[in-house]
């Protein structure tokens, strides 16, 4: 029973750490995709007196697209028959695509820089709605990060507690082995074995949880509503979790063995 408890403590700690790491990465990926979606639908509109070919000074700009106003002109011609459009010098309209979703401060800077061009007469950033979205995303990101860091810290605290238990459990055996000249790896063999088995069990449980979440209706509905398909490579993620899980277990074992060495 005690042995089961001792296994459960490490497994639980590892599962919480692995889950928080995976959820953190998944959430970041979803956020990135969501930001990308928003960015695709967002652009700054500028009105210029002269044609613009580049705005190289503003590094945040990904692409400059000229807005075709022929249709609008045709419409105006029909509507205002007396209007002689040829006599009016029409300005040039451009749509600016950005590389990343800018913060409100950055957006303000971009607007200022655009306005500093003498030919640019108007800049429309739609900053009010963009700021709301950006702040909401940041709030979600920070909240989820803090939550996951707390889970990971709790997991580490559980592991520290488990190290104390291990020290008591394995102290006598390792001490006797040391008196007979057992090398480091020999003294820790049993501990390494337990730690490795626990890390594999923790990984299996975590992978099970991940697969369950990924196949859940709520998760899939939510993502399809947001029009997001996370592109995390699951094999890579599981490999990463395996490395982290076995790494933590190995380091924990080494700490106990070194701690017991007299």
């Amino acid at each position, binding site marked *: 029973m005690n042995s089961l408890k001792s296994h459960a403590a490490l497994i639980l700690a590892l599962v919480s750490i692995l889950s928080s790491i995976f959820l953190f990465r998944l959430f970041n990926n979803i956020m990135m995709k969501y930001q990308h979606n928003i960015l695709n639908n967002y652009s700054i509109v500028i009105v210029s007196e002269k044609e613009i070919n580049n705005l190289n000074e503003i590094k945040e700009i990904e692409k400059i697209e000229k807005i075709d106003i022929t249709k609008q002109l045709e419409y105006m011609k029909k509507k205002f028959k007396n209007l002689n459009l040829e006599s009016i010098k029409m300005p040039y309209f451009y749509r600016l695509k950005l590389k990343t979703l800018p913060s409100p401060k950055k957006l303000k800077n971009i607007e200022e820089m655009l306005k500093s061009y003498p030919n640019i007469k108007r800049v429309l950033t739609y900053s009010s709605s963009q700021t709301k979205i950006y702040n909401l995303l940041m709030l979600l990101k920070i909240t989820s990060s803090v939550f996951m860091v707390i889970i990971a810290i709790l997991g580490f605290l559980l592991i520290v507690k488990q190290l104390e238990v291990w020290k008591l459990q394995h102290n*006598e*055996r390792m001490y006797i*082995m040391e*008196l007979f*000249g057992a090398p480091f790896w020999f003294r820790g063999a049993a501990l390494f074995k337990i730690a490795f088995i626990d890390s594999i069990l923790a990984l299996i449980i975590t992978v099970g949880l991940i697969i369950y979440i990924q196949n859940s209706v709520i998760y899939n509905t939510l993502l399809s509503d947001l029009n997001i398909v996370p592109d995390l490579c699951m094999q890579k993620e599981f490999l990463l979790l395996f490395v982290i899980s076995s790494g933590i277990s190995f380091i924990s074992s080494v700490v106990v063995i070194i701690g017991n060495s007299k």
Partner: protein
Amino acid sequence: MGVLVKAENLYIGYKNEMVIRNANFKIYTKDFVFLTGVSGSGKTTLIKSVYGEVPVVKGSLNVGGIELNNIKKSKLSYLRKYLGVVFQDYKLIPEWTILKNVMLPMLISGIDKSTAEDEAIKLLNKVKLSHKLDKYPAELSGGEQQRAAIARAIIHDPVMILADEPISGLDEYSANLVMDLFVMANSEKGITVVIASHSLPQTFDVNYRQIHLEKGQVHELS
């Protein structure tokens, strides 16, 4: 006979108290030595210092050509593989069977499990514990645990056996059996035997030497 242990102006002890002061003695290969003295005279401390559990404070303690003063851990582990230690409290691993406990030094030396097991069974036969192979230390009497501890100390044919009060508290049958094992190890395998004991055995027909400890002073009596 070559010198196996050589102490020169040796001081051993703890921060506040020197247990052994300015000791000079030698133990030779194939020696059978009784380390005598009253309780608290420093027998256990001296034994512990020979296998490196208690550090040398001052002077020199050389075991098998290895200087123990400021010895590195790796070198100490190497030295311990060539020693067989019998502890006063047996120090058998509680969660291991007697068989596995006896196999320990051979496993540490890298000998394969089946050879170690065969050797351990042979030795446990000799110490009359063949019927207790699968028992755990807690299931054995003090005398039986001591015999198992001696089997563990000699299984890997060490250069020297260090035994701390190996027969104290044992009944006559167990005590005789234990002493016979030491004699056998010494005479048949040429293993140096050092036994810490508060007194010399009454009847013992083996040539032995005595090193006596008194108030921190070490005297080679024979």
